[in-house]
């Protein structure tokens, strides 16, 4: 009987781990999905924005001695600005070029930013000093037998949920959101209707990158590790989450992140930790085989 109790608390703890990981994937996935929705380009440099976010907050906290929440806020703003520059430098000149060209500049920017970070911060793993958050963040907020959820986990999850809701409101209730949806359907007609296409695209990059930078800081805190290549693996996973949920769909990115995070953790916990990534990608492939447009994606016909 005790064994059954232990088994179920193990399962619950893994679920908590999986949901937190999924929330992080979702935050990054939103950046991919929004940019893809609007200009049909996969912004492979998005993972690097996430990495820069983690490093910027690190520098502000350790070098300039800012309090954590101020650093967090500033980082999000700066990452939004980086997103705009990224679009301006790497994608805007290629707006009318074949989509493959933009894909190559995306990969180029990704490699460039990774190496830039390596030059500035070095390649070794850094971690945020423990003192930057009040001590209670590391203590369990809820505990049930052996299962516990720390305040930090709750903080990460609530930031994720709150910003997803804000994003949903922006897309569906504001003028700029309406313009984004219009551009995603037809760029030329939107321009004819008087929508400033480039301005709206810049805005899209800004929002997506802000979320990416935010995710970088949260992950850096949660796993205690920031390093120049962190954006690569996380970016690929988040991209997979975006595809799984249906690329172009914001709720899809959230759902995809959750599914991928839980699949990964359960795979490692119950099947084999050696094949952890393999298992999570197998889940993704299985979903895509049965539903090629992703869990919540629209049928996109010839666009893909």
């Amino acid at each position, binding site marked *: 009987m005790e064994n059954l109790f232990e088994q179920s608390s193990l399962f619950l703890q893994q679920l908590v781990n999986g949901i937190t990981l999924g929330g992080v994937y979702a935050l990054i996935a939103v950046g991919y999905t929004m940019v893809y929705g609007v200009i049909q380009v996969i912004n492979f440099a998005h993972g690097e924005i996430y990495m820069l976010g983690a490093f910027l907050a690190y520098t502000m906290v350790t070098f300039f001695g800012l309090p954590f929440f101020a650093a967090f806020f500033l980082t999000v703003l700066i990452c939004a600005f980086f997103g705009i520059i990224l679009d301006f430098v790497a994608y805007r000149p290629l707006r009318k070029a074949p989509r493959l060209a933009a894909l190559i500049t995306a990969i180029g920017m990704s490699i460039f930013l990774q190496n830039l970070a390596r030059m500035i911060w070095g390649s070794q793993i850094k971690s945020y000093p423990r003192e930057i958050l009040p001590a209670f963040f590391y203590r369990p907020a809820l505990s049930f037998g052996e299962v516990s959820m720390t305040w930090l986990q709750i903080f990460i999850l609530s930031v994720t949920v709150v910003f997803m809701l804000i994003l949903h409101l922006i897309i569906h209730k504001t003028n700029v959101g309406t313009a984004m949806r219009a551009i995603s359907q037809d760029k030329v007609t939107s321009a004819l209707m008087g929508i400033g296409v480039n301005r709206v695209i810049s805005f899209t990059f800004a929002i997506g990158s802000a979320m990416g930078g935010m995710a970088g800081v949260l992950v850096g805190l949660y796993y205690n590790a920031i390093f120049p290549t962190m954006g690569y693996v996380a970016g690929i996973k988040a991209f997979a989450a975006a595809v799984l949920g249906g690329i172009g769909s914001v709720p899809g990115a959230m759902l995809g992140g959750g599914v991928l995070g839980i699949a990964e953790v359960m795979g*490692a*916990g119950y099947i084999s930790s050696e094949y952890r990534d393999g298992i999570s990608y197998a889940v993704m492939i299985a979903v895509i085989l049965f539903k090629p447009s992703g869990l919540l994606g629209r049928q996109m016909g010839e666009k893909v």
Partner: protein
Amino acid sequence: MKKFMSFLIVFGLLTGIAWADSIKIPVASPFTGQLASFGEGVKNGALLKAEEINAAGGINGKKVEILLEDELCDPKEAATVATKLANDPGISIVVGHLCSSSSLAALPIYRAAKLPAISPASTNVTIGQMSPYYFRNVYRDDFQGQFLAKYAARVKGFKRVVVFYEVNDYSMGLMLAFMKEAKKLGIKVLGTEAYSSDTTDFKPQLTKFKMMKPDAIFIPGYAPQGTLIVSQARSLGIKNVAFFGADGLDDDVVVKNPDAEGLFVTTPFLPDKAGPQAAGFIKAYRKKYGKDANWFAANTYDAVGMAAAAIKAVGQDREKIRNYLASINSREKAYNGVTGKTYFDKNGDCLKEAFVKEIKGGKWVSAEKQLQ
């Protein structure tokens, strides 16, 4: 065009002269990437030895020049570096590689080119048997794993242990050796879990370990992941569980982590346990670099010393150097270095002592009880 040609000629002459004037000893190791801090010890040790050799007049009047070859602890990069060195007729011996997986990738290339190499740090068991051209002045993982099991059982009294290993040659070799010996000594291994080097999330595996209630978690991996594992275990509320590892955890990043207090590791070199032959090295190292020499520095210092001794004795001929190294096969003929006497068995492996050090008050200190 003419200008360019003459530039080329001058450049060629200059480099040619430089080549004729010095003896190049390449040192292959990660110098950037995740394991860059291991490479720092390697680099410092090699440069210090070369400086001392040159100050004493070089090898037969020629200066020693250390070439730092970065391979990122990546087997693919190691093979590229190895191919480059094997095809350079100016190279007669290599000091390297550091990671076992890199050594295993580079070794067939050196064997084909009949180029001898001395690894200061690769501990995987199979390396020695695979090539008559590959030597090492460090113990093997079967020894290290056994040693750790004995230490865990006899000194620490652990009964229930779990193993958290990385999927690579070094870590898996250590795990197997540890488990075999642990079984003999009555330590129960409750479970093993794996991770890959690109992950930062260890919570699913640690959650499983938490439910098993072990006395200790053995991490036979490298420091960048080891430090994260320890911190994430603490944040999952794993308490009263000891952590220990092998020489791969011997790094600053682990010491600076407050969660790692009490963690212990095996190491081939401890400044305060080294014999009187190491005193000069330890002092010179501290003076030049402002910190204590770690085992990567000490072993590389000796490996470069052995390479220089070989060249001094038989010249820059690859085959002769190999035969010279192979002839150092008994305690009487041993090379006397800062890490003690080094001599090779028929596989090019050597017998070296292991020591234990632990983290106390945020510093490495030699463990009070050593196993000899």
